[in-house]
């Protein structure tokens, strides 16, 4: 079962919101390491951060976390869809929210927008240590259990991260 792992390697520009992330597909580790691929992810944790700034324009993808997973307005969702960037979900945060009994209303809205094709979603682990990583099948099961169709969940876990990594989203 081939899968991709996203590993965070630190800030590139010192900006709070901009993170540099290295994505390694298991069968492409050597090649990727040699060519030093990296993608920029703009992290959105508050609703007022959903703005089209130069940082967002330069980012390869967005990531929604924190309060945004529990509450997100339709206006912010429309803005997100207008940005035309893939939206990442930190799955470990989703799991911790589920176990603590916190609301995931925002995530459900995001998933429904993804199902309608408004924007693309990719599931990231959100892990900061190697032992926190879980098997991608588990992320797939969580997304499918939250109401995504199997095809959409499969795309979010296996296909979309690879496509972002290979530059398929922004051309």
């Amino acid at each position: 079962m081939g899968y991709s792992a996203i590993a965070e390697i630190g800030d590139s520009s010192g900006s709070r919101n901009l993170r540099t992330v290295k994505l390694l597909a298991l069968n492409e580790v050597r090649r990727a390491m040699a060519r030093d691929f990296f993608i920029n992810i703009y992290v959105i944790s508050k609703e007022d951060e959903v703005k089209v700034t130069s940082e967002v324009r330069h980012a390869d993808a967005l990531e929604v976390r924190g309060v945004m997973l529990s509450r997100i307005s339709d206006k912010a969702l429309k803005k997100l869809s207008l940005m035309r960037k893939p939206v990442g979900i930190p799955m470990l945060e989703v799991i911790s929210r589920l176990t603590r009994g916190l609301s995931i209303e925002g995530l459900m809205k995001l998933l429904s927008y993804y199902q309608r094709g408004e924007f693309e979603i990719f599931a990231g682990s959100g892990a900061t240590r190697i032992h926190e990583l879980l098997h991608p099948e588990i992320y797939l099961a969580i997304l499918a259990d939250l109401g995504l169709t199997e095809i959409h969940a499969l795309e979010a876990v296996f296909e979309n991260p690879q496509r972002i990594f290979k530059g398929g989203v922004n051309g």
Partner: protein
Amino acid sequence: MVSSQTALVASWICIVCVVATLTYIFFKLRNVEQELSILKEALGGKAIKAYLKEIETRQKRKIVKRYLVMKVSPIIKDRKALEGILQESIRKLYGSAYLSLINPKVLYFNVRSGKAVVRFPNEFRWKVIASLSIASKEAGGPITPLRIAGTLRKAKKLADE
């Protein structure tokens, strides 16, 4: 002469009776038809249609079991311990009601290969795999789903590989 008159009257009475009975039956049938049409309309409603369909499917539905082969962290050395961890993680994520519906059973545990086989109803497949995220935390090591098999024999074969 008198007898022929009585016979005529009697026949007239008979005819009137028959006509009256027929009219009564006709109107009664019309009423029944109306009632039937009302019932038919009511049964044609979306909710009742869905309910009837659900009853039909419930009668046909058969509980299909599946066998999940998974790699367990070397910290777990006991079948019962693994079962307890799985049950606890399902209870934590979905509650006791789902735990009794899913009822995961560890049927096979190979200590040497570190693989186990868990049985559960197929309709809760995603729930069982999703609960492994919590189980991994509780076990203190990763629990990785490898494959889902349809029979225990095949699952055991996969676990022994």
